[in-house]
């Protein structure tokens, strides 16, 4: 489903210099599987999520990334979204003045239009969002507020998953969705993610800690260090990391 081959990516820093971050990353996530990426801070996990979704300033300088056979690097962010690529942001963005409900309806209908599907009517949409909000314990009151404005870290993460439930993407990238969540919220959010597990859907779960993977059991765990995947294995790899830390991989990657 998602195929990444020897991907190299650089960002432009604030002083206008090119900084290589991904240095030959390869990864395949077949439909129906959940893969976890674990790695120390600064190893390039968020960079991977941005280059996959097409953020400005993240330039592919080598290798390839395809989604269901389509070359992603040629597509605009909104085109990738319409293909079904969804990023749950590590730091969800505040959009003052745009109510969450309005935003989500715009997004859903824009994606549907791009795929040649009919728009969802206002009553249909309200029914859909009520149902999903209930599932995630989000009040309708919160949905009327501007996107992420004044929400706590945990509420923002909850909203990211709510948006995924409404948009039903084919592939989800969760970038540190567990950070900022207390135990109860972690459970609710994980239940939301697990509800989206399906044979036709892939997921890439980026995390720093084992604890999210206690709730969302991955099929494969990858360890990322210094812009590359340095080791892959089963769920037990995450447990091993928890016990031993990243130190031994940092040496290998340098």
């Amino acid at each position, binding site marked *: 489903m998602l195929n990444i081959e020897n991907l190299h990516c650089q960002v432009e820093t604030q002083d206008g210099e090119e900084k290589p971050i991904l240095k030959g990353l390869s990864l395949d996530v077949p439909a129906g599987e959940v893969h976890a990426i674990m790695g120390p801070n600064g190893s390039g996990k968020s960079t991977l999520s941005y280059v996959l979704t*097409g953020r*400005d300033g993240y330039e592919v300088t080598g290798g390839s990334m395809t989604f269901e056979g389509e070359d992603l690097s040629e597509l605009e*962010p*909104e085109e990738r979204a319409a293909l079904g690529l969804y990023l749950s942001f590590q730091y969800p963005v505040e*959009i*003052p003045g745009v109510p969450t409900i309005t935003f989500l309806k*715009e997004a859903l209908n824009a*994606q549907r239009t791009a795929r040649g599907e009919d728009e969802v009517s206002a009553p249909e949409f309200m029914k859909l969002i009520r149902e999903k909000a209930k599932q995630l314990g989000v009040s309708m009151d919160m949905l009327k507020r*501007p996107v992420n404005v004044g929400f706590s870290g945990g509420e923002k993460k909850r909203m990211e998953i709510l948006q995924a439930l409404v*948009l039903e993407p084919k592939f989800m990238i969760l970038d540190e969705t567990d950070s900022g969540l207390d135990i109860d919220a972690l459970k609710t959010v994980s239940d939301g993610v697990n509800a989206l597990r399906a044979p036709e859907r892939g997921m890439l779960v980026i995390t720093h800690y084992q604890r999210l993977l206690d709730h969302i059991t991955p099929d494969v765990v990858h360890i990322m260090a210094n812009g590359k995947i340095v080791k892959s294995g089963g769920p037990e790899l995450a447990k091993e990391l928890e016990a031993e830390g990243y130190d031994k991989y940092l040496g290998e990657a340098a």
Partner: protein
Amino acid sequence: MTATLTHTPAELALIDALDGATGWQAQLREATRRDGLPTRRHELWKWSDLRRAANDVTAPGRMTVTGLETPVTDGAHIELGVTASTGASAADASLVIPAGASVTLVERYSAEAAALGNWHLAITLEENARLDRIIIAPDEAAGVFISSAEITLAQGAHLHQRSLDFGGRLSRIETHVTHPGEGALVDLGGVYLLDSDRHADTTTVVHHTGPGGVTQQLVKGAAAAKGHGVFQGKFIVDRAAQQTDARMTHRAMMLDDRAEIDAKPELEIYADDVQCAHGNALGALDETALFYMRQRGIPAPRARALLIESFLAEPLDAIADETLREDLKAQLRTRLEALS
């Protein structure tokens, strides 16, 4: 002053158009004859060079004003259409809002290509009167349109003004308010949205002459490449105007590096016990928010329009009349979708 001012064709056309005029129009004619049209050398026009903007005007034109026959009584809704044809023209009117009356005044301006239109309104609000003044300046033909108003409030009077300006070759909305304090309230709001080669100038002076006056002002704008926005706001607080509470904010968004926005917020305070503040902030579109919206599938132009609309709409949200509020917001939305 030298006696050898050489008039431009536009100045000659305006002087000609106002031959035999009286009142404000006679003053305009005399000022034009004596000094010419204002240029960047005039402090109040330093970012809006009228002489240059009018350099395609060669003949007298006509200014048509509709709606003046509506009686100014409590509950009145007055719709003025002010249209400047090609060429130099002027018109003026005066209105008195009777004591205790509440009146809505809507002014819709348009100026044809190669127009230099001058519109002046003198408004008096008697005691406890309320005026909601709404100004809409669309830009279809991109002429020059100068609106100026002298508004005087009596005790307890409330003025709520909102302008929506899409600019023109040069569009200027100038408002002078005399604020007596004593329970009177002045609430000025404005929005400008400028596509390329559009110029809009919002100039206001609020003169506080008596104690305890409240003034609030919020102007928001956005300019695309080669759009030029100007904000000049001045609060004058006389020594007699103790306990004045006056706040001015201008916030604008440069949609491109080649946009130009000039702002001069000014406080001139002679009283010592007042609360006065002004703020001015220029920014750009939030690229992070733009990416977030696109990641959710909203196409870039639509995402941009939504972000700009949510930034600009605030002053319009306070328009009391719902039909008018929705009308202005719809116009803003339409214009945003067409933005280059």
